[in-house]
């Protein structure tokens, strides 16, 4: 460890900083830092903790709104959903640890995000996970996939928070660097939100939960803020080990403690451990902190001050209590058999002073650690590959003769195939709130004691963002919002996890900036402010960067969960099937970056589907109004695999009595392209069968309804200026699709469902 060695000639390198950054530290302190202090700066000024590369771009995101109680900068964002209830939610990455040790890496990712939520005083009610791996034909990727899913389940199931949603995609670009993004949502009384602030001179600083060991040292600086090489596995000791049982006790103890009124502020110990928790609490509260390391309960002896400050031992929280209430804290934690040790106190001034055996081992301004990291405007350059992907000529692409065969291949593609192999390893029922389970567009939870519900989803398409970061990022927001709307909810707010390659490469920086612009634009247009999130850079192994992958976590509210909750599955024979939104059919508009292009033609090319945010918002309004009016029996957004896959999924049926059923669909030759006027049915000469069936044109929702409601639905669509076309009827045992009167697909639903259902279990055998 750096602190234990004699000062080297280039001490900054040992903690992952640059010479310039070292000079800045000397300037802030007015002297060279000692080795412990340098270690603290190394952590807090790492990319992972300081956001030094992303900070200036992130300022472009809209973060305010009438419902926002807490935006970015705290442990989690908080939005007011009415009835005196607030929702705390956040998404975070645990990519690098999961690549090195998939089970524990993913498990501790879940553990960390749970603590962020209960640090706000909220009880976690849902977990969602957005995952990316290399293709499943490779053994290592199956091992990673299985391990990550096992770790998420292992932690969430034992802790007792349902995992209700998420997504999984498989692309070669993630084979050296999988993505594991975990989102957590919690509930808190609107006026009982707690913050991670150290205030009140003389108040005790109390470390609660697990004991501190040598695990996870350098997780933030060396794991999360560096790219991988072939020696990545040697960093396995930097991965923490999770104990969900202890975290469950910690949750109950913390919530019990918050009810006593003894707490001023609290925060969780995650990346950068005590260093981050203490400096951020002090800096947010405008106070200083004094920490006596001899008081920190440890699980091993002989730890240096440096190791205690840097440890990333899991399941720990830092509490600032009111002076004189220490015994209340001890009593609650003793009930749960947990440690609660007074390790310091809040001081005036703003310095973080660390003592060991009465000796000061570090003394630095807390704000210098938490806020004064340099901000970089790294150079950017448009990636060269874009010239080629943009110039792709769809006219040269043959239209397959066997379109039913294409549908079958898409349904069995792991990106689209049934994910029950994943979510059946997660307890998605606990807490008895799950109204709509995993498998539909968004999970829906009821909120006990109110009529309301929450709709939750995550979304992100790395291929789209690779082909056009700005458009792809906007699509991620639009699709997340659409999922929530299809479930009967009004989209409220967004948390995001931005997974990118090495930002020191100008092409990555270009991707990153355009992505943030796209997110900002879409969040503004759809009225969903960003309340927090996480940036994960250096997702690169041996020079190979991942697709730029922003993952959007979105929270929506159902006015009346009993009335409005809607699933994607067709319900009754004889119901009408209608498409809200444009019919599509033009290859250059809908096929770029599509699953069809990848699976059938082996291509990642073109531009992502065109997105008109104004049209998107009109479609959302029309769909939500129709749902609230009781007209809609099912609603499913059109995304991966296009209209044909969407229709097949709607036929497959859901849990319980929602049995599979067929549908007969008649599509016109082509409809208005995105942005076209509602009802404009002039055929485009550029329309093609493959683009009609498998194009991923945006702003589209397939709904089913009782024929008696058709006139009212038409009126609502017209009033909202949203295109609407009745395209068929629910019924029979087969999915039949005809285009311009010519049958193009006819397959028994049972056969399609079997292929879709068995694809992933078969690959994982």
């Amino acid at each position, binding site marked *: 460890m750096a602190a234990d060695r004699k000062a080297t000639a280039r001490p900054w390198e040992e903690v992952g900083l640059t010479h310039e950054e070292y000079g800045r530290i000397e300037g802030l302190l007015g002297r060279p830092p000692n080795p412990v202090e340098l270690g603290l700066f190394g952590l807090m000024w790492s990319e992972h903790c300081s956001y030094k590369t992303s900070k200036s771009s992130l300022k472009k995101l809209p973060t305010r709104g009438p419902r926002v109680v807490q935006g970015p900068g705290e442990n989690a964002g908080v939005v007011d959903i009415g009835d005196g209830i607030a929702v705390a939610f956040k998404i975070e990455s645990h990519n690098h640890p999961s690549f090195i040790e998939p089970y524990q890496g993913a498990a501790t990712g879940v553990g960390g995000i749970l603590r962020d939520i209960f640090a706000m005083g909220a009880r976690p009610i849902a977990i969602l996970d957005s995952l990316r791996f290399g293709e499943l034909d490779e053994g290592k990727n199956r091992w990673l996939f299985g391990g990550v899913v096992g770790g998420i389940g292992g932690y969430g*199931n034992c802790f007792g928070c349902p995992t209700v949603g998420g997504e999984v995609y498989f692309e070669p670009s993630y084979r050296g660097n999988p993505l594991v993004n975990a989102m957590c949502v919690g509930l808190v009384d609107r006026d009982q939100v707690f913050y991670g602030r150290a205030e009140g001179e003389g108040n005790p600083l109390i470390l609660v939960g697990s004991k501190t060991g040598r695990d996870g040292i350098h997780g933030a600086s060396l794991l999360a803020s560096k790219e991988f090489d072939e020696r990545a596995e040697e960093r396995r000791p930097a991965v923490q080990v999770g104990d*969900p049982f202890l975290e469950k006790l910690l949750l109950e103890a913390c919530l019990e403690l918050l009810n006593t009124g003894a707490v001023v502020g609290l925060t969780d110990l995650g990346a950068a451990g005590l260093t981050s928790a203490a400096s951020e609490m002090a800096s947010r509260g405008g106070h200083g902190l004094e920490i006596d390391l001899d008081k920190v309960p440890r699980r091993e002896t002989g730890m240096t001050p440096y190791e205690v400050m840097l440890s990333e031992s899991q399941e720990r929280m830092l509490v600032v209590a009111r002076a004189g209430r220490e015994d209340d804290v001890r009593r609650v934690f003793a009930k749960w058999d947990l440690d609660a040790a007074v390790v310091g106190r809040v001081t005036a001034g703003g310095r973080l002073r660390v003592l060991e055996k009465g000796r000061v081992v570090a003394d630095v301004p807390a704000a210098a650690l938490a806020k004064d990291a340099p901000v970089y405007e790294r150079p950017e350059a448009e990636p060269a590959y874009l010239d080629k992907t943009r110039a792709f000529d769809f006219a040269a692409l043959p239209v397959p003769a066997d379109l039913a065969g294409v549908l079958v291949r898409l349904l069995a593609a792991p990106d689209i195939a049934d994910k029950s192999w994943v979510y059946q390893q997660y*307890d*998605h029922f606990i807490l*008895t709130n799950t109204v709509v389970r995993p498998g539909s567009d968004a999970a829906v939870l009821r909120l006990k004691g109110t009529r309301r519900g929450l709709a939750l989803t995550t979304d992100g398409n790395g291929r789209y963002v690779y082909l056009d970061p700005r458009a792809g990022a906007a699509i991620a927001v639009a699709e997340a919002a659409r999922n929530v709307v299809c479930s009967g909810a009004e989209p409220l707010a967004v948390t995001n996890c931005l997974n990118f390659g090495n930002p020191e490469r100008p092409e990555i920086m270009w991707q990153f900036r355009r992505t943030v612009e796209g997110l900002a634009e879409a969040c503004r247009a759809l009225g969903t402010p960003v309340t927090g999130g996480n940036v994960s850079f250096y997702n690169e192994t041996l020079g190979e960067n991942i697709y730029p992958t922003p993952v959007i976590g979105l929270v929506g509210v159902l006015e009346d969960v*009993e009335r409005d909750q809607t699933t994607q599955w067709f319900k009754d024979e004889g119901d009408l099937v209608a498409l809200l939104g444009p019919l599509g059919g033009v290859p250059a508009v809908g096929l770029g970056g599509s699953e069809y292009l990848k699976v059938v033609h082996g291509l990642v090319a073109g531009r992502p589907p065109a997105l008109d945010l104004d049209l998107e918002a009109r479609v959302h309004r029309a769909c939500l109004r129709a749902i609230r009016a009781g007209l809609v029996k099912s609603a499913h957004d059109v995304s991966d695999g296009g209209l044909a896959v969407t229709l097949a999924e709607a036929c497959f049926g859901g849990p319980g009595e929602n049995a599979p059923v067929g549908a007969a669909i008649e599509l016109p030759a082509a409809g208005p392209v995105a942005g076209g006027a509602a009802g404009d049915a002039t055929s485009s000469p550029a329309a093609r069968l493959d683009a009609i069936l498998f194009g991923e044109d945006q702003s589209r929702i397939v709904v089913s309804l009782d024929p008696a409601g058709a006139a009212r639905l038409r009126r609502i669509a017209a009033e909202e200026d949203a295109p609407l076309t009745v395209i068929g009827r629910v019924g029979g045992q087969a999915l039949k699709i005809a285009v311009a009167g010519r049958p193009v697909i006819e397959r028994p639903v049972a056969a399609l469902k079997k292929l879709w259902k068995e694809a992933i279990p078969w690959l994982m055998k």
Partner: protein
Amino acid sequence: MRWAVVVFPGTNCELDCHHVVADVLGQPADFVWHKDTSLDGFDAVVLPGGFSYGDYLRTGAIARFSPIMGAVEEFAAAGRPVIGICNGFQILLEAGLLPGAMRRNDNLKFRCHDVHLRVENAATPFTNRCRPGQVLRIPIKHGEGNYHADRATLEELERNGRVVFRYVAPDGAVTPAANPNGSLNNIAGIINERGNVLGMMPHPEIAAERLLGMEDGRPIFESIVAYVEGTAGARWVPAAAARARSRETPGKGGAADGR
């Protein structure tokens, strides 16, 4: 009547069990901390699911030593109703209040999905509101629900109507495909010899409300109310209880049970 919902460290279905009893059925219910030693004043006891003590050893193996378990044993010995769900079932096995043991699911994975249960004995304190042979749809969520017992115990359970629930296909047929975890004889729930202690792996508490899409778990709680309040119809008199005096095979666990 008053319900006790016992909470061990790591129990995580206590809120759900309390919710069903208190909010859905409107019955008085209290949480009882595992360090308590008395169940005085209670008429029914629920041992909820979860991961008591993290289940880092055998499931339920440590919880059986919690102070409250002495009171649970007395409560059971007095013939009063005790229901153990999932981890609660595992604890009852470890405590020897029910015979047999749990192994890991045969696919070695945690499994969370709906299963269909056939009511094999509708004359118990826990099923008197069900029809014999009725098929209930209730979810499971566990990693160790693979019920095992020696042949003599199994035969005794089967002969005396002590297998209360069996995993079946939606049409009620006992098939290997309907068995989610490898349990012998597709066993999902059993009662003790006297008939007042039930252990079941599926979770009736998450299947008790129309809004959640599943209501088949509610009759199990309603049956307990009917039993305690004396409004249950036929009471089950274990036919063989008078004859067979064979003691329960205590769930000794140990290495042979595997994990």
